[in-house]
């Protein structure tokens, strides 16, 4: 249906606005949505820019202006830089893993056999599960005396007791892989849908022209997956920058705060009653995402123009 309607769409978009749009498409239709957006989204965001510069906390009732005090404190003890670095590394790794896994699964399960259908359903179960639950499951699996070490011991014949969640370097990578594990089913679906839109005869033509299967895949089919890649990379990046549940349930930010992404920091300082510091970090997250998001939006826009 969408494909048959694609042609009228461009015509409709370019139609000159000769009709009196005020009467046919009245502005009051926008009011409820924008009222909600204003009160529950824009206003708190504006508040962010105000309260990040105060000494708002649970310890006293009055709120006073504190200048850049919160940021200075966060900078001087290194928390700000660390949390930013951890969040960016985590987001980049999630985007990488989730797309590699999802793409691999889509290619592997492309044909519509009953086994492939069943496997696709299996990979969708984690997508439906709560992220918190996923974190707890892997916490149990990866304990030093947990099942992963147990299985490895049985396979190698030696006693394996790796502290998977105890490394200040690799636990973050593992957390990103687990985040990717939860969402790879969704990426797989998007890639599968992308692969399905490529007609058989395109690859057939390439083969007749003498392209090797490898060439045919990478230079014909892969570029045609561009919209799916954009969507998947963007959603993975944004989802992980706003991440909280999986890491909180898996490590709680440890060991030694090496997996403390921004939202865990905000949660922790808020719990301690340091509202202004939490707000300052929330503002940092906002600014970081806003800065990194502009390229993403541009790519999304470009994709819209192509189609």
């Amino acid at each position: 249906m969408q494909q048959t309607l694609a042609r009228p769409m461009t015509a409709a978009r370019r139609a000159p606005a000769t009709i009196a749009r005020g009467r046919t498409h009245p502005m009051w239709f926008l009011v409820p949505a924008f009222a909600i957006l204003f009160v529950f989204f824009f206003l708190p965001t504006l508040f962010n820019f105000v309260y990040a510069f105060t000494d708002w906390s649970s310890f006293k009732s009055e709120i006073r202006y504190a200048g850049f005090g919160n940021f200075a404190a966060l900078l001087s003890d290194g928390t700000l830089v660390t949390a930013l670095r951890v969040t960016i590394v985590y987001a980049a790794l999630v985007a990488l893993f989730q797309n590699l896994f999802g793409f691999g699964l889509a290619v592997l399960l492309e044909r519509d056999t009953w086994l492939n259908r069943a496997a696709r359903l299996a990979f969708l179960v984690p997508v439906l599960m709560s992220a918190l639950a996923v974190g707890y499951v892997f916490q149990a699996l990866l304990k030093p005396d947990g099942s992963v070490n147990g299985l490895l011991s049985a396979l190698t014949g030696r006693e394996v007791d790796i502290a998977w969640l105890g490394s200040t370097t690799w636990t973050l990578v593992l957390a990103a892989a687990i985040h990717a594990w939860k969402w790879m089913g969704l990426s797989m679906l998007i890639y599968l849908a992308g692969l399905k839109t490529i007609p058989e005869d395109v690859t057939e033509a390439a083969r007749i022209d003498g392209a090797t299967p490898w060439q045919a895949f990478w230079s014909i089919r892969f570029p045609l997956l561009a919209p799916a890649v954009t969507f998947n990379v963007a959603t993975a990046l944004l989802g992980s920058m706003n991440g909280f549940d999986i890491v909180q349930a898996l490590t709680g930010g440890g060991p030694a705060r090496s997996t403390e992404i921004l939202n865990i920091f905000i949660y922790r300082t808020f719990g301690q009653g340091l509202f202004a510091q939490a707000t300052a970090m929330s503002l940092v997250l906002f600014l970081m995402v806003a800065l990194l998001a502009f390229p993403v939006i541009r790519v999304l826009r470009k994709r819209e123009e192509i189609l």
Partner: protein
Amino acid sequence: MTVPAFGSAANRGRSPVSRGLAARLRPFAVVALVVPVMGVPLWLVVVTAAKSQGEALSPDLSPPSEWRLWENLAQVWQQGEVPVAFLGSLLVVGPSVALVLTFGSMASWILARRAGRLNAVLYALAISGIVLPPAVVTIVLLLRQLGLAGSPAGMIGVYAGIYLSTVIFFVTGFVRTVPLSLEEAARMDGAGPARVFFSVILPLLRPVLATATILICLYVWNDVFYAFFVVGGRLDTLPLNLFQVANAGLYLNNWHLIFAYIILMSLPLLVVFAVAQRRIISGITGGAVK
């Protein structure tokens, strides 16, 4: 993980013999992948949830000496206050989704049909929430000033504010594919804007609204982060209870109860998914790859 997949894709179309071999090996690769990657974690959940406390102290993959899944589920049902939390979750998810879909599609219709600079700015503002993270801390302050702190209404408003952007982005794109002539025909017959929207446009939006419903239900049903800030401690939702209960002393070293809770909590979505999987899958993919 991707290497065997690429290899087998590359093998397609080579001599018939190798194609046959790759095709015959592929099912084994699928099974060899699904069992450890999906089977092990899910098996762990089920067996641990069926064990006694002593056996579940250190969760492993061995089957329980005696299956007591029902007893554990019953215990969690009572101690974890599942019925209350379930109602709390429903109370928040239902209205948020209804609100977001109705108001979101109303706005999308106008944003898709009008032209001009003002409209472009409004559209950019409306979809900015897809990218920008909500200000979780100051939302709490604002809700307190509005007298909505800790209330379901406040929570619904917050979810609506967060996910309206997603709906508007999806639906605006879709409305542009609906020919203007359909609206004009209704207008000729004397229908006003409200009539045109609700009886011509809205029914046509069903596929994209299905996609949006699924995604937003998923996000809101499983959300714990925003719920913690907005209603933490005052309203029970399923994920919030899991979080509080897993952190609390009561459930320390009670892996069997944590996993029983996880099963109870995931069940509603799994049932919905099992019943409507075909429509859900086509809904998600239809909306994303236009």
